């Protein structure tokens, strides 16, 4: 998959230990131990990423492996290759079939569920879902 245009990209060969923070979108495909905090921005965890970290951002999209807690003020999307070992807290959550979570899920707001379009178990809270109070 390609990172969104305009995102800061950290490639698969990069290893970071410590705290990563910022105010712009980040595509993280490397290895990180620590925390990632992005204020009002989107974090994409690439398919090659291995993060032993707590993640905080507005929106978080996961294709890779995360061991740590994920907190989003907006939406979390777990794509089918995602493996998350940790707690998840968000307003909205989208999970594709075969994505795996081990941990607690807390959604801060009730969402309206529409039928999944791609797969039987996909996208129930996600792109096709409408959260009436968010508009």
């Amino acid at each position, binding site marked *: 998959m390609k990172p969104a245009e305009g995102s800061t990209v950290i490639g698969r060969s990069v290893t970071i230990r410590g705290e990563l923070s910022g105010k712009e979108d980040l595509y993280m495909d490397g290895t990180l131990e620590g925390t990632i905090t992005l204020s009002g921005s989107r974090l994409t965890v690439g398919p090659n990423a291995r993060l032993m970290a707590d993640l905080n951002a507005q929106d978080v999209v996961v294709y890779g492996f995360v061991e740590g807690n994920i907190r989003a003020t907006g939406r979390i999307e777990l794509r089918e290759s995602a493996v998350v070992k940790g707690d998840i807290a968000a307003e909205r959550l989208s999970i594709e079939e075969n994505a795996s979570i081990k941990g607690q899920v807390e959604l801060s707001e009730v969402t309206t569920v529409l039928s999944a379009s791609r797969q039987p178990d996909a996208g*129930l809270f996600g792109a096709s879902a409408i959260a009436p109070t968010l508009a």
Partner: protein
Amino acid sequence: MPSFFGGKDRAGAGAVTNERVSRHSSGWGQLLERLRSEDSLRVLDIGPTSSTNINFVTALGHSIYLANLAEDAARREWVVAQEDGSSRFDVERFLAAHLNFSGRGFDVVLLWDTADYLPEELLGPVLERMHEVMEPGGQMLAMFHSPASASALGAPNPGFSRYHLTDTNKVDVQRAGDYPLLNTYSNRQIEKLLASFSGFHFFLGKDNVREVVVTR
């Protein structure tokens, strides 16, 4: 008519599909009443991740915790070689790694049929840990295959499955992996395994799968 694990359609061809098969579940029906009548319960769902279950439980105002013990237990890392050439399952290390819920207490546990996919030496300690992490009055739903249910589907492996909740006394069952069915237990064995619980409710399905709802 499709059976519990879609066996009628698949037994002959040996094919594995992702289709969902609806199955009556009296045990789920019993827990559903509680989830509807009480607020802010904590639910532990043990099995392959189902976004349907996350949606269903959180929409009722409860929180949900997910774990897939059968998958975790199938890893070779837990099997320790002994000096005499035999091997054992490292139960203590497994419990510490996968059944440490950081002090959370659960009101409802959905064990589904995971028990039959765990090594026998691990099952007792897992059920004891379940008892420890449940709140007083908490309820657990467990399902157990029987030799009859297995043979009806072409023994020995009925197929590891993901269970999707519905708002009726039915669950949707979807094949989710190739983990082998490791054991089947008699009713007496099930009672002994769950001896620390009270309030047993046994239900026998048309497919000879036994459901048990126990209370802590």
